[in-house]
Every structure is written in structure tokens, then in C-alpha cells.
């Protein structure tokens, strides 16, 4: 899409068409209220040509002085002065040329007094026409720059969203991965069958975290399988220090949500809640539809004390929050804090809309 104001041909087309129409309109008015003659055509031609030239001079002046970049407060007084001068000069030129034409035709009215009042009327007319011209000229430029700024904003937002989605795409914590591998190595000797199972859980988790693209969404049931794999692997590391339960209403299973969302909540609960406690603790995950059936509610509770580090918002949670914001806008809610009902427990709650999932999804893919 080309900006209007970067097309010089358009300028000339508008100038010629505009001033020609102005001249014709003037001629028609004079003919209607007075008398049509060739003289009227000649005078209107002089007027239109003079004003075209004058407005072109104004354009050159505007461009040279960079008036397009000036704020209105600085522009208006300058424009007022320029238009006063330009109108007066234009009227002078028109007057001279007109007199010249009359003189050439030998029709110079010498006896009659000079109709000053009439010329002041002409002057005012020209003055306001120039204001109109300026309004169109500046208007088109402002419109163009507004539109290109708007387009830039869209592009920027789209690029930022894409980049964010790419970085926000949750990845497996390397600590978790390598500890898992190390534990499996020990398990190979101790319990080969369990070692094989753990290897499978790890493979599933790796595949899941690698294959997802940021804008894609998965049914809750798929996400829960991954969370189960994850919990099994964490149980290998934490053993008796981790006790967990998962309770999900069957009708919630097909609801779509961004991949790794629950995984991150569970990981966060273990990393900051249970793992730092020598005695460990318990974790419970529950999910169900809300009363109206238009939203999914997920709650993750874990033993622990809610202690957000000031100036250091958890990367994982911010990740969840930002992805939800990008996908669902304000319709999604996420909150974490001390559980109001259970002591010594942290509650992370997530509320996702089920309706309009398709459209918000598509918007995010843009």
C-alpha cells in the first residue's frame, strides 16, 4: 500500500483538477449572477492559474521549512502569516494581470472609481480558499503518517507476539532433565523395569516439549498425560518427599489450553514449594468446568509458604501469564498466593474461557 503523499503525480492531478474546478465554479457563478463573456473566462483562468502557482509556492515553502513535522502550535501562526502574504500577493498579481487584459482589450474603465470593497471580498475569498487548500494538504499528510504509524504498530505487535510465543514456548528445565537421566542410570541397577518406564516418561516429556509450537493448543487430557509423566519423574528424584493427587472432571478433558501450562504450574509448585523443604510435602491438581460451563478452572495446591522474591518475578509463572494473555486476552485469569482455606499451602489458580477459543486462537496465530 502506497502512501498518498509520496506520489508526485497525485499532487499535480489534485492541483490541476482542484483549481480548474475552482475557476469553472467562479465562472459559472459570475455567469449566473452577471453576464457570461469571454472576459469572464479569461479572468477566471488568470485567477485559477495564479492561485495554482501561489499554492505551489506555498507547498515548496512548507517542504523546505519542514512544516509538516512542526506541532500545530508552531505551525498555525506561521501558516497564518504565510497565507496573509500569499493572499495579498495573489490578489495583487490577479489585479495586475486583469488590468493588463482589460488594457489589451481597450476596455479599461477609467471613469469609474476603483471598487475597493469588492477587492477586499476577493481577498477574503482567496484567503479562505488557501486555508482550505492547506487543510487538505496537511490533512492528507497527517492521514498518511497516522496510517503508516498504525501499520508499523500492527507489524511490531505481530512480530513481538511471534517472538514472545517462540521464547515463551515452555522448555524443559535442564536441571530436571539431567537429574532425571542420572537417576535413571542408578535405577538401571536397582530396578530395571522401573528404569525402562522412567526412560519412556522422559522421552514423552521431551517429545512434547519439543514438538509444540507456541500458538498451538492441546486438549487438557493430553496435557494431563504429560503432567503425569512429569510427576513420575519428579517422584524418582524426590521419592517419599513428594505426595501427589490429580482430580479432573471428565467433562473438562477436551478443553483446549496452551501446552505446558499445567506442566509449568506443577513444576513451579515442586521447585519452589516442595523441593526446598527437607521434609517435602504434597501437591494436588484439580480441574473442572465452572458453573456456567463457559470456563475451565484449574487449581494446583502445594505445601509451602508463598514468598515471591521482590524484583524477581518467577520466570515460569510470568511465562504462563504472558502466554495466556496473548492467547485469551483479559478473559483468562491466573493468580497465585497463600491458600485462604488451608494453612501452609500455596494455591495457584487458573481460569480459562472455553468459548471463542477458535477465534482467539486464530488471532494469536496471526
Amino acid at each position: 500500500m502506497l502512501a498518498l503523499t509520496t506520489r508526485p503525480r497525485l499532487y499535480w492531478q489534485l492541483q490541476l483538477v482542484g483549481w480548474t474546478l475552482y475557476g469553472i465554479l467562479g465562472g459559472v457563478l459570475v455567469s449566473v449572477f452577471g453576464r457570461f463573456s469571454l472576459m469572464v473566462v479569461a479572468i477566471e483562468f488568470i485567477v485559477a492559474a495564479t492561485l495554482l502557482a501561489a499554492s505551489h509556492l506555498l507547498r515548496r515553502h512548507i517542504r523546505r521549512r519542514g512544516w509538516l513535522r512542526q506541532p500545530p502550535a508552531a505551525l498555525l501562526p506561521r501558516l497564518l502569516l504565510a497565507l496573509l502574504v500569499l493572499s495579498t500577493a495573489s490578489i495583487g498579481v490577479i489585479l495586475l494581470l486583469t488590468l493588463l487584459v482589460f488594457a489589451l482589450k481597450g476596455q479599461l474603465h477609467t471613469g469609474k472609481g476603483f471598487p475597493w470593497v469588492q477587492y477586499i471580498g476577493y481577498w477574503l475569498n482567496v484567503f479562505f480558499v488557501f486555508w482550505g487548500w492547506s487543510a487538505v494538504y496537511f490533512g492528507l499528510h497527517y492521514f498518511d503518517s497516522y496510517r503508516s504509524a498504525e501499520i508499523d504498530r500492527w507489524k511490531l505487535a505481530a512480530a513481538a507476539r511471534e517472538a514472545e510465543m517462540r521464547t515463551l514456548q515452555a522448555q524443559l528445565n535442564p536441571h530436571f532433565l539431567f537429574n532425571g537421566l542420572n537417576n535413571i542410570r542408578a535405577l538401571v541397577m536397582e530396578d530395571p523395569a522401573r528404569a525402562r518406564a522412567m526412560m519412556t516418561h522422559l522421552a514423552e516429556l521431551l517429545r512434547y516439549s519439543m514438538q509444540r509450537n507456541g500458538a498451538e493448543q492441546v486438549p487438557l487430557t493430553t496435557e494431563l498425560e504429560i503432567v503425569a509423566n512429569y510427576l513420575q519423574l519428579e517422584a524418582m528424584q524426590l521419592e517419599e518427599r513428594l505426595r501427589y493427587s490429580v482430580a479432573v472432571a471428565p467433562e473438562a478433558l477436551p478443553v483446549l489450553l496452551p501446552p505446558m501450562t499445567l506442566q509449568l504450574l506443577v513444576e513451579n509448585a515442586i521447585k519452589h514449594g516442595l523441593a526446598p523443604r527437607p521434609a517435602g510435602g504434597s501437591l494436588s491438581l484439580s480441574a473442572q468446568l465452572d458453573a456456567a460451563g463457559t470456563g475451565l478452572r484449574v487449581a494446583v495446591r502445594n505445601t509451602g509458604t508463598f514468598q515471591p522474591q521482590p524484583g524477581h518475578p518467577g520466570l515460569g509463572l510470568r511465562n504462563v501469564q504472558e502466554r495466556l494473555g496473548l492467547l485469551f486476552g483479559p478473559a483468562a485469569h491466573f493468580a497465585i498466593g497463600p491458600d485462604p482455606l488451608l494453612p501452609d499451602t500455596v494455591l495457584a489458580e487458573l481460569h480459562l474461557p472455553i468459548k471463542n477459543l477458535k477465534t482467539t486462537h486464530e488471532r494469536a496465530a496471526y
Partner: protein
Amino acid sequence: MNALLIDDSRLARTELRHLLRAFPDVAVVGEARHADEARQQIAALHPDVLFLDIHMPGQTGFDLLASLDGPAPHVIFTTAYDQYALKAFEVNALDYLLKPVSETRLAAALDKIRSLAPAPAPALPALPPTPEPALTVQSQVFVKDGEHCWFVRLADIRLFEISGGATRVHFEQHQPLIPRSLQQLEARLDPKVFFRANRQQIINLHWIAGIEPWFSNTLKISLRNGPDVEVSRSQSGLFRELMSL
């Protein structure tokens, strides 16, 4: 060589124990799941080397080392992914192994420890109330100041200086702050090497570059690589006594 394994994961300890079976001179004398347990075990067993995980429930491996009184044992860090934290160390008098641990890397780390001075301050089990092992000049201490950690030989420390409620340790170009009082330190330092110059400062006599008489019968001592230290009047007398034949 007696080793203590410190890791919160039982399987990780099992794995390390298994790997260490290949080295007959290494005896695993104990295991600990977190810093508190480790402190008890260290006090009871006096291991020669710690295999130390960094991330543990409660205190980290660094916190554990910084809390140890007495000389720091040899330490081999074991970590899943903290090599960057470890590389940031100012003094590289330590080794680390990445989990899962490779046998050859483990062998190299053990070789390095065998090549170092014999295990620091082996405790004599005959003495019933084991006195806290005194620090010798060759002892290494672990110093932690915020995110920065160092293993420092006492011989390299030229000055301890009171700074608020804590003590600033001067060595090389570093001056980390450690949360101990000068009195605590003085009690455990070798008096033949470390001298209390005044209320605020303990200097390492091996780092003295020059001594000059100062006002009212005191002394001013300049240390190699700075700073100058004014010795109090009473300590100046003591210093002359110590230094005279």
C-alpha cells in the same frame, strides 16, 4: 581417602557410590541429604573429600561450605546443570562433575585431589572431645560473599579487618565480607602467622613489606599490595617482643 556423599536424591547417591567402587582407595564413609545432615556428618566423620550437590533443600552446597568452621575439606561439586555458576568461581581450587557423571572425569577429579596436599587436618579419633581443627597456613577456607565464592589458602590472606558486624578478608585483589567476628577468627588462626595489630585488624606477618616507628611509640606496618596498618600501643610492644631475638 574418606568420602562423604551429599545429595538430596537417593538415586544420585547410589549412582555415585556405585561409580566410586572402581576406586579402591576411596571409601564412602557416609551420606547426607541436606546441609544440616552434612554438617553433622562432617563433624563426626572428618571426611577427606566431599562430593557435594549444589541444589539441595534448605541451604545450597555453597552455603554449607561457607558455614563450616575449620579448614574446608576437598570438595568435588556434583551438579546437573550448574557448571556456569561454578565457572564463575574466582579461585578454581575445586573440581566439579556433571551428572550423569562420566567415569573418566571422576578418575581425573580424584587424581587431582590425590596430587594435592594430604587431607587437611586429619582428626585424631583418640582425643575424646575433638577440638575444632585449628587452621594452619596451608589450610584452605571457603569464603562466600553474596554470589561470589572463593577457596582461599590462609597463606594468601594478608589482612582481616572489622567492617560493621562482619569481617573483611583481604587477599589478591578481593575483599569479600564474611559474617564472623574478628575475635572468632583470631581464636582459630595460627598466632605465629596472624597478629592482632589493633582492635580492627589482624595481619599476616608473612605479608609485611616494611615497618616504621610511628607516633607515641607505636608502629606502622605496610603490607605487600597494601594497605598500611597502624599497630596500637600495647600491641606494638608485643610485636617488638615477638620479633626480637
